[in-house]
């Protein structure tokens, strides 16, 4: 166990010195997962709202599909995106494989079902008569949706946190579609896998501490917003 302690001390030293490569990996992780979470929110929030409030054929099927998608294994997503973006694949001409954009695409696919499903659950737990009441007070459909989002802000922000958590922590898809290329597509999780494989526990521990700190800070920010009193 001594090497763990030694690794921890070396990790602190590495962080203290502000290692450029470690910093670069951290920033790329934040950028890629932040963008993927934002995009999944843009897609998942309206989609979840439609599934929660809409009345159309196939709604329950789509809802169960979104629920299933929450357990989508990142490696399966990685495989699917790899096939699509492979040079000889249907989207190969875009030349996105082994780029940060490819990781973003894979992470969006991982996070969209999470955000969609939890958004639908958040809105479905509201009293259905609230919607009727808002319409009866002269709200337009858009105003109804915004008011319901505001009313369900606590579980909706939890959905956002879960979406971010699912992408910042995944490694399979990032490794497969990003290739873990140094200085280009290496993110915190893929770097941890690499350093552990090389026996470089100090760097692996340093990167793990950074990953946990980053996740904590993002969730702290979202929790502070969540617990704030509503603006309305």
């Amino acid at each position: 166990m001594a090497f763990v302690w030694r690794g921890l001390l070396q990790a602190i030293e590495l962080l203290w010195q502000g290692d450029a490569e470690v910093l670069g990996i951290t920033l790329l992780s934040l950028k890629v997962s932040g963008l993927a979470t934002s995009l999944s929110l843009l897609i998942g929030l309206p989609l979840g709202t439609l599934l929660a409030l809409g009345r159309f054929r196939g709604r329950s099927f789509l809802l169960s599909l979104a629920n299933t998608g929450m357990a989508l294994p990142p490696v399966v997503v990685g495989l699917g995106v790899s096939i699509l973006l492979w040079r000889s694949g249907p989207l190969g001409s875009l030349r996105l494989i082994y780029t940060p954009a490819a990781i973003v695409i894979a992470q969006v696919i991982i996070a969209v079902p999470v955000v969609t499903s939890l958004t639908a659950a958040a809105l479905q737990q509201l009293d259905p008569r609230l919607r009727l009441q808002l319409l009866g007070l002269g709200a337009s459909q858009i105003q109804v949706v915004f008011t319901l989002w505001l009313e369900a802000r606590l579980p909706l922000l939890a959905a956002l946190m879960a979406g971010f958590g699912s992408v910042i922590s995944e490694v399979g898809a990032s490794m497969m579609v990003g290739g873990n290329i140094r200085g280009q597509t290496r993110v915190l999780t893929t770097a941890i896998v690499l350093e552990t494989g090389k026996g470089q526990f100090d760097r692996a521990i340093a990167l793990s501490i950074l990953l946990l700190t980053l996740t904590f800070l993002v969730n702290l920010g979202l929790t502070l917003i969540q617990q704030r009193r509503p603006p309305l």
Partner: protein
Amino acid sequence: MKRLVDVRGLEVVRAGRTVLSLPRLTIAQGEVLALMGPNGAGKSTLLLAIAGLLPPTRGEIWFAGERLTRRNALALRRRMALVLQEPQLLSTTVWNNVALGLRFRRLPRPEIRQRTETWLERLGIAHLAQRRAGQLSGGEAQRVSLARAFALEPDLLLLDEPFSALDTETRADLIADLRHLLAASGATALLVTHYEEEARQLATRTLRLVDGKPAD
């Protein structure tokens, strides 16, 4: 008296069953019409249809000389205000709840402030303005719901069993206050109720429905 609501040949069919069939109903301006009848008689269905919240299977609803259609539903809905049995308040302050419908109409801020203050005062809940909705008693919450509706100064007030969930004493207080407010504002209202006493105190006319049809 001028006709505000005119319902012609209204039919609502749900799951193959006709839940409402009303050849003709008019509500004159300033009138308070009580809708009475047993559960499932079609009272709330009629109220929601007039509110533009439930499209009828057949028939026409005219409001202030305009036929209610999908196209003008929002504009006409903004001339009405709905009060439900459960107040359905948002988890924010009483003030914000009363101002809600005024904000939906994008009225100027000073007008929102003035109308909200006025109706908080008239319903006797000005001292609760900054209280969170979740901290209110049933009676207080229903007063907020009424203030929220009256603040809109609607042409038609739609009241769907607004006092059913309250205890006898609170209900009596609220009915007395509502009677006073209706008389003072000259508002037109449609009141769904199970209670004869409530209808007698508040309404100028009563319509009884049984199995979706007028009983008389």
